[in-house]
């Protein structure tokens, strides 16, 4: 299939891995930032083919995983109300809140629906003028333009029954936080190519000046990922720390300027809570005053007032810092599985724990696998 087969080519991937093996002289730890990258690394088994010097750790770029418990609780409160059609991307529905998840709300009679685009939610609002339609606007910069467009359209159409529950976070602040935190063992980053397709990578140039690490804009298929690893390792071996683009077919330095303009029209930067990390200053989006009417927290003040403290059981913090792998968690695969997740990293297929559970469980339990 065009644009897929050529980037999933086994021979080319192995050739790139061979080149990594030829230049690597010491151990390096790379973080792939995006959950989609983690998923594909584990699904293709790329991590098992890399030279043993290279350790990949799995970054915070899974929007489902970093959405704070409090917002899930707010979503559940809103979705439980009569007269509300609550819409969401599919994988948010299984994220556990303090009590229950959105699937449970649906089972109790709430109108919870999966949509593929927030514009479908806008259409639902048009078709159901007597219902309040709420969209769970979760995600990084990747989903922000579409979410912004839905609000922009709703305002243009004069809809009074559409709003979004905003849980938008952005990549540069969390990378900065990781670089400034103690003990974080990351030598280089594979930057999240789809975020960069929207935002470009000019923002990262400043970050690399103050915090010198290789930052390679990386795609999602095995050939893309292997190339990202190769370029990052080459920088490390040559003592360079630069922003490089290994995903030229999708990413330019400036990014999608129309998308950025739309984000800026609808959203402004704000402090955001990250699940388990706490609040990072100016790390996400909130609706601008001109669009405040479309904020579900304005429309449902009782839900907005919900405040949830998170308990501390699981070790995702250390996983995020590269100190531990999902398999180091005593609950992993035992009390915590994709059908009974203890934490959000086990829920989304992009979460590190879920990806390990689905694709990597056996290697970690030291069974030797040979397919002659």
């Amino acid at each position, binding site marked *: 299939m065009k644009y897929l087969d050529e980037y999933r080519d086994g021979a080319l991937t192995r050739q790139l891995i061979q080149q990594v093996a030829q230049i690597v002289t010491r151990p390096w730890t790379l973080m792939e930032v995006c959950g989609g990258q983690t998923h594909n690394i584990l699904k293709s088994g790329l991590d098992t083919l890399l030279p043993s010097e290279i350790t990949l750790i799995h970054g915070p770029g899974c929007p489902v995983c970093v959405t704070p418990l409090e917002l899930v609780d707010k979503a559940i409160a809103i979705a439980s109300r009569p007269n509300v059609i609550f819409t969401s991307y599919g994988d948010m529905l299984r994220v556990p809140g303090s009590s229950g998840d959105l699937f449970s709300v649906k*089972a109790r009679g709430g109108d919870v629906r*999966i949509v593929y685009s927030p514009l479908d939610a806008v259409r639902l609002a048009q078709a159901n003028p007597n219902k309040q339609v709420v969209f769970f606007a979760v995600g990084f910069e990747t*989903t922000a333009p579409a979410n912004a467009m839905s609000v922009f359209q709703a305002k243009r159409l004069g809809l009074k029954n559409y709003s979004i529950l905003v849980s938008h976070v952005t990549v540069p602040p969390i990378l900065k936080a990781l670089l400034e935190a103690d003990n974080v063992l990351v030598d280089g980053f594979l930057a999240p190519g789809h975020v960069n397709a929207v935002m470009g990578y000019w923002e990262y140039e400043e970050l690399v000046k103050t915090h010198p690490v290789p930052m390679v804009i990386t795609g999602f298929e095995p050939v893309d990922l292997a190339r990202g690893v190769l370029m990052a390792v080459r920088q490390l071996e040559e003592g360079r720390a630069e922003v490089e683009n290994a995903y030229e077919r999708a990413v330019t330095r400036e990014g999608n300027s129309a998308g950025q303009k739309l984000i800026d029209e609808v959203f402004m930067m704000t402090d955001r809570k990250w699940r388990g990390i706490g609040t990072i200053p100016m790390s996400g989006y909130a609706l601008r005053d001109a669009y405040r009417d479309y904020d579900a927290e304005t429309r449902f003040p009782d839900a907005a007032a919900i405040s949830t403290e998170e308990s501390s059981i699981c070790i995702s913090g250390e996983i995020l810092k590269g100190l531990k792998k999902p398999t180091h968690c005593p609950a992993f695969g035992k009390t915590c599985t994709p059908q009974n997740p*203890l934490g959000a990293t086990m829920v989304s297929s992009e979460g590190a724990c879920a990806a390990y559970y*689905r694709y990597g469980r*056996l290697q970690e339990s030291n069974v030797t696998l040979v397919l002659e």
Partner: protein
Amino acid sequence: MSSEKPKLDGWTCPIPLKHYPTVVMGHGSGGKMMADLIEHLFAPLLENELLAQYGDSTLFEVAGQGGRLAISTDSFVIQPLFFPGGDIGRLAINGTVNDVAMSGATPLYLTVGFILEEGLLMDDLGRIVNSFGTAAREAGVKIVAADTKVVNRGHGDGVFINTTGIGVVPPGVNIAAQNARPDDVILVSGTMGDHGMAIMSLREGLAFDSTIESDCAPLHTLVQAMLRVTHDIHCLRDATRGGLAAVLNELARASRVGVEIEETAIPVQPAVQSACEMLGLDPFYVANEGKLVAIVPRAQAEAVLEAMRQHPLGRQATIIGRVVDKHPGVVLTRTRIGALRVMDMPAGELLPRIC
């Protein structure tokens, strides 16, 4: 702006959600949640030696008659009721015919229960029953008992259909989930994921250049063609809910063997692959309604494959892997780039990813 460093320690976890207090959609998905429900709720209350066969159909003998019968029941709840390649009526025949056929039996008789929702268009009901009758005649099965109930508007989804099928197993045939042996060969009868993606792309209004058609079809004549070559077939499953991944995991567990497959050997239609890429789904987890997975001894593999390819429903049949004596209960797949990974049982409902 605060200059305080964010805390990266103690990344936290919500309260465990071990048990749902109510039934959720995932309990019907053909994955682990459904397996748990059967194991912990249904099986302890209904257990007997026949049900314990855990096959697509159950084999039993009628006292004094010799020979064995196969019986299976299935309920059909699908939206939309009409879809490219079929409708709920055709599905209700073929689904049960296939479950009976997977024990090697020739399906003969079906019973049917229709649950109709108040407000269903009589025209639609007529189309469905017409299609149901046509599919029964095509499959050579007789409808021998039938029931109709009507529920209040809002208490059904147009039409629900239950069918139960009975068939006769030819002497010398012994097909069961427990029969896979190391060195056996694994075959599929065609492309994976067609039915599930036909329904999903319709339901979600995804616009594609080409329409994906459901593969809904009765497989018993294909099974008979395979049995004409040899009775030495170890396992047969039709890869419905949970797709190929669920079938392979169930067979690996039931037979206490390992399974190793080649990802690149598994046929998938380009349009199905595209739809899966858009939704972030894996075609090996998506439902089929006219495809079977067969496990046969290596010595019989080529002959069975040839027989399948001669049959209209097996033209794209192919060998996808083998049974091994290592890692019992675990399915491994060699990826396109040559690595090995686990192909696990699906958990609950297939959820499209955010990005």
